[in-house]
């Protein structure tokens, strides 16, 4: 089998140099040239250390930055370091009496020289350079990647209607390399992301079963970021007995997927179940108790109870939950002849809200958050401030040509020209329209049950909230708390998994997220899907807001866990009995939820109404016990 020689690697390397507007040949371009080889040695060895080639390429690009379009010299000169590396590689080829430098020679030369940008990046990503060198020496270039056959079985609890893809099975076999067999016990209900979460029992050659682990599979960027985040933010803040991330992530060259394993420190009990399943068994009353007595105090000691005062403007913590401020069709980065409006920090939303389909805008100084190479789009955000603020004011850009233009996560885009394709308001209207409203969803107010008989339409009313200041508190938060991420282990102990969003942020965000999960997964599931049902549930929430509890009867027992959440929130309010702080979180979290197409239709209908209810409360300062029972009168509104 022919091995890849220097000539082909140099073609890849020059292409990378041009994509980045560098116009010189650096060691970083050579290394990316090596990573571009399909099934090549360098990519394979890095995958064995839990990284993907693309992830490393993006990290290298972040360190060098993109150059200017304007060229300052002719040709593509080698850097002095490239000359050193090529001469080491040449010596290696000569020693082995090869006529041309091959990929192994070049990789070894780069590792030997040891001071170049790619090697500095690998060290930062905690790659074991010594091991990489040893493997590069001994691995045959034509070796297929290590892949043993592992039998995959399914437990009786596994929902057979849900088929695992070939790519997922491939990744699972690699994750459990060394075992004879694995048994997939069940799929834990995921949240509203694409992540797949499975409970897996590994079985050894001697048929001895090891403790079950939780496996999370998602796109590589997300999983690799989660692993880095876990090291930096999560590891040291977990209670002593809980799920922990084991080892490095596992990646795959057959797909853009990667996997993580969470192990349970508590023992060999195989019965870790997510709260959605447990809730059905223990009943709604016990569920509320469990949240208050187990989950909140156990993780609270290092998380929600370690609160500091935190005054913030709503958009900084919550804008990122909303659909993109704008979706643009990519035009380019050249100067436009016509004057166009510029979107830059500080973002003036009132000017952006006036934009329409087809308007041309420039985006300046935004940071690339995500790049979708299959669908040729990327997402930008302002990238400054707290972790949530960095993701605020998303701008989606479609119609890129990523083989010609390099865009990488973390890149500051100095200037980009695009044509408005969809505004945020249009995205929100589209989401409501898909819920088949039985009322005019483009009107300024919407009908509900009882008095007042209308609430503000959240689509037109949320924007003012974003500029409000909140006197709240700040702590470590999970960032994506819902029933599927909370596991119940031995002795009904609480386990959290999925730390992809864990950060320091507004304490109440976690509880607003969990309330929304309870309303969708427990309350609406029991009640039904219609708008009428959603309005009836809304009335119960209004009663809960009023603190009177009127309206909560045996028939609405499913609301009990929600009132347990409110008890926890009461403890976490920065100013006692000032519920505005919570309603802000609930309003913004429900604004997000009604755009989720993975949530049930009934759930999304309720979320839309809940956004209206909480915004109404915030507009009228209807905060605190007894002051907000306006929806609790039981005069149904006929439509």
């Amino acid at each position, binding site marked *: 089998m022919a091995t890849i020689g220097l000539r082909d690697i140099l073609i890849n390397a020059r292409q990378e140099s041009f994509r980045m507007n*560098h*116009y*010189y040949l*650096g*060691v970083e371009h050579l290394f990316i040239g090596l990573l571009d080889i399909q099934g090549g040695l360098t990519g394979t060895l890095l995958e064995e250390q839990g990284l993907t080639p693309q992830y490393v390429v993006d990290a290298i690009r972040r*360190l*060098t*930055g993109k*150059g*200017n379009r*304007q060229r*300052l*010299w002719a040709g593509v*000169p080698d*850097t*002095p*370091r*490239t*000359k*050193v590396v090529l001469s080491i590689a040449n010596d290696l080829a000569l020693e082995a009496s090869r006529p041309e430098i091959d990929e192994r020679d070049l990789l070894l030369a780069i590792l030997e020289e040891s*001071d*170049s*940008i790619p090697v*500095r990046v690998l060290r*930062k990503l905690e790659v074991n350079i010594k091991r990489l060198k040893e493997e590069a020496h001994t691995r045959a270039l034509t070796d297929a990647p290590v892949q043993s056959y592992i039998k995959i079985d399914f437990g009786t609890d596994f929902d057979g209607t849900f088929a695992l893809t070939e790519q997922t099975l491939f990744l699972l076999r690699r994750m459990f390399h060394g075992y004879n067999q694995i048994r997939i016990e069940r799929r834990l209900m995921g949240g509203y992301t694409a992540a797949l979460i499975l409970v897996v029992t590994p079985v050894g050659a001697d048929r001895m079963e090891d403790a079950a682990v939780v496996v999370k599979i998602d796109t590589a960027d997300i999983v690799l970021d989660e692993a880095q985040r876990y090291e*930096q933010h999560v590891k040291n803040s977990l209670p002593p007995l809980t799920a922990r991330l084991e080892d490095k992530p596992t990646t795959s060259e057959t797909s853009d997927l990667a996997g993580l394993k969470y192990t349970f420190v508590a023992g060999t009990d195989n019965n870790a179940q997510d709260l959605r399943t447990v809730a059905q068994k223990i009943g709604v009353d016990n569920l509320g108790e469990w949240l208050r007595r187990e989950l909140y105090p156990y993780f609270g000691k290092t998380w929600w109870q370690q609160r500091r005062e935190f005054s913030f403007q709503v958009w900084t913590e919550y804008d990122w939950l909303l659909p993109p401020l704008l979706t643009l069709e990519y035009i380019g980065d050249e100067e436009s002849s016509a004057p166009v409006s510029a979107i830059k920090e500080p973002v003036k939303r009132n000017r952006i809200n006036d934009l329409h389909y087809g308007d041309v805008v420039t985006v300046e100084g935004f940071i690339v958050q995500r790049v979708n190479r299959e669908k040729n789009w990327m997402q930008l955000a302002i990238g400054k401030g707290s972790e949530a603020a960095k993701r605020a004011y998303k701008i989606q850009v479609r119609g890129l040509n990523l083989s010609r233009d390099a865009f990488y996560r973390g890149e500051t885009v100095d200037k980009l020209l695009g044509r408005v394709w969809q505004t945020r308001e249009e995205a929100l209207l589209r989401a409501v329209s898909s819920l088949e409203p039985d009322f005019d969803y483009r009107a300024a107010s919407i009908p509900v049950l009882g008095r007042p008989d209308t609430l503000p339409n959240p689509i037109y009313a949320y924007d003012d909230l974003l500029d409000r200041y909140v006197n709240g508190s700040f702590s470590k938060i999970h960032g994506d708390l819902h029933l599927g991420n909370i596991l119940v282990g031995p002795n009904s102990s609480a386990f959290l998994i999925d730390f992809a969003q864990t950060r320091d942020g507004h304490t109440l965000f976690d509880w607003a997220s969990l309330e929304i999960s309870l309303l969708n997964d427990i309350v609406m599931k029991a009640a039904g899907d219609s708008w009428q049902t959603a309005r009836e549930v809304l009335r119960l929430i209004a009663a809960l807001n009023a603190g009177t509890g009127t309206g909560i009867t045996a028939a609405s027992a499913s609301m009990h866990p929600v009132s347990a959440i409110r008890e926890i929130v009461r403890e976490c309010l920065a100013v006692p009995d000032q519920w505005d702080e919570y309603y802000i979180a609930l309003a913004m979290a429900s604004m997000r939820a009604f755009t989720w197409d993975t949530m049930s239709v009934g759930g999304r209908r309720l979320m839309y109404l809940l956004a209206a209810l909480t915004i109404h409360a915030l507009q009228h300062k209807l905060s605190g016990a007894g002051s907000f029972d306006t929806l609790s009168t039981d005069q149904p509104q006929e439509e």
Partner: protein
Amino acid sequence: MEDKYVGIMLMSGVDDGLLLTFDDDAGSQNGDAWTLSIGRKEDNDVCLRNDTYSSRYHAKIHWRGESWWLEDCESKNGTFIEDSVDDQRVTGTIPLSDGQLFRVGRTWMRIQPVD
């Protein structure tokens, strides 16, 4: 006198790997400090003519009291010290150790001894 012989190695860009060496003919003497200047203009000791992100007079390094100091000269795009998580922007004058990576505009460099 021997202390003043110093090398600065460029660690990124088109001149990545280039070692510049300075003796006491270079730089300037200000009281007890020996100073080398870094910037895009030709009259800097370290001239970054290819880095459009560097200012004309961007930064200075000083040898004073037996150690190195790095000063940012109110540059537009900043001077940074490498850090494991996020690079730290330099304000004013800070101590600099041998081998410590720092960035002027887009150009990474480090001080290293010369044999």
